[in-house]
């Protein structure tokens, strides 16, 4: 098997501007999704994820403009998520040049949206994001609305369900680890990866290069996503990939 493990930076975008990422002194405009995306691409990012947190009524227009700009400059794949609630939202983003759309809360409220997107555009472009947290019964529970609302749904069952419904990939975020820099949640990731037969992206908690090596070593996860370690330039993706290669993780260099 020569499929490489993927390293995916995540960029939060509001009104067409990157919210974090101002820490790159050598960029002319670190708020520009194209410029920051190009920097990550040049560093060796395998894919990008844009999380659109725009809440204005103009959202659909601003996001499609941003997607168009990114797609016309970048020659690596990218996913756009954030507030996608209908097949029209998905079409708007995909036809503007994104490769995949990420859905989360709306997939929980309206699971048939997963099937609609995957039948219409192919399952490969339907990424279902799952935010999970250990509850008092030691169950991994799914949360919606940006990890604020508990749903009572078991994350492992939900991951199998979204696979059946047509998801092409799962973006799995550990709420317990998110923002801690304590490392990816290996236990959660392994539980889900072993129960589904679609690719899984691990997210939440990354603070060092060792954390990437750890999640790839201990689980059969396909990709790992991080935001702040890259935005705050703790290390760059090319150093990370060299480190992973030394640790016998297959990466694209």
């Amino acid at each position: 098997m020569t499929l490489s493990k993927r390293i995916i930076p995540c960029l939060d975008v509001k009104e067409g501007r990157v919210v974090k990422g101002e820490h790159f002194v050598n960029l002319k405009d670190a708020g520009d999704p194209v410029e920051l995306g190009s920097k990550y691409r040049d560093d060796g990012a395998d894919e990008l994820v844009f999380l659109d947190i725009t809440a204005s009524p103009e959202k659909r227009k601003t996001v499609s403009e941003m997607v168009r700009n990114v797609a016309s400059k970048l020659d690596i794949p990218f996913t756009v998520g954030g507030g996608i609630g209908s097949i029209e939202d998905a079409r708007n983003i995909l036809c503007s040049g994104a490769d995949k759309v990420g859905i989360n809360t709306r997939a929980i409220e309206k699971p048939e949206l997963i099937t609609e997107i995957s039948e219409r555009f192919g399952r490969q472009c339907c990424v279902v994001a799952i935010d999970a947290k250990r509850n008092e019964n030691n169950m991994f529970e799914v949360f919606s609305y940006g990890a604020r609302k508990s749903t009572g749904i078991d994350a492992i069952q939900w991951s199998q369900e979204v696979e059946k419904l047509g998801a092409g990939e799962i973006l799995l975020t550990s709420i317990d680890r998110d923002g801690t820099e304590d490392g990816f949640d290996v236990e959660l990731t392994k539980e889900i990866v072993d129960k589904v037969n679609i690719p899984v992206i691990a997210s939440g908690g990354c603070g060092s290069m060792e954390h990437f090596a750890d999640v790839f070593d201990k689980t059969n996860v396909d990709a790992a996503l991080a935001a702040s370690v890259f935005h705050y330039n703790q290390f760059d993706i090319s150093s990370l990939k060299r480190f992973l290669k030394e640790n016998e993780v297959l990466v694209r260099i």
Partner: protein
Amino acid sequence: MIKIAILDYGVGNLFSIQTALEKLGVTTIVTSELDTNLEYDGIILPGVGGWKHAVKRIQVNQRILNDYYENNKPILGVCLGMQLFFEKSAEGPGDGLGFFEGEIMLFSNNVKVPHIGWNTLKQNNKDRILDGVEDQSWAYFVHSLYPKPTDSKIISTTTDYGIEFTSMINKNNIFGTQFHPEKSGKAGARILKNFVSVCGNL
């Protein structure tokens, strides 16, 4: 000015391949119906959507595509677009173009499906379209099915995903890639550039 038609089956992202070609100075025409009155230097069958839907859209264009095939004019099929060069697919009912004999197979359950991510191209034949592309170059894949051509001579590259599958085909001026050249960084850009040169040389 080189003029290339991109066939639109009505779903998904055509913008990326279109801008990739325009960066190479090509005039692109995105259309769901190829125009017999227009002389294209090449045609691209892009890689978005599903088999069942695409074979319907291909029917109205079958005659002109056959004409290009028989007159050895350049056609590039990407992902699903390449799969349409064959007759049948495990993905669904309907007939493809039937340029090549063989089957479109589904990956078995011992690997994760879809096959998503960067994998390497092992070169069998040094095609014109691989000029300047190193052996074992990385390319971006996103698919659940792959072609199994009857004639192994048309196989340009193979890729290892549990099995060794055909990732690129070529016969005369017909080219097919299972990966997405428009998303495959430098190697992909070079392959598109080489295709454009083939279109320009006729």
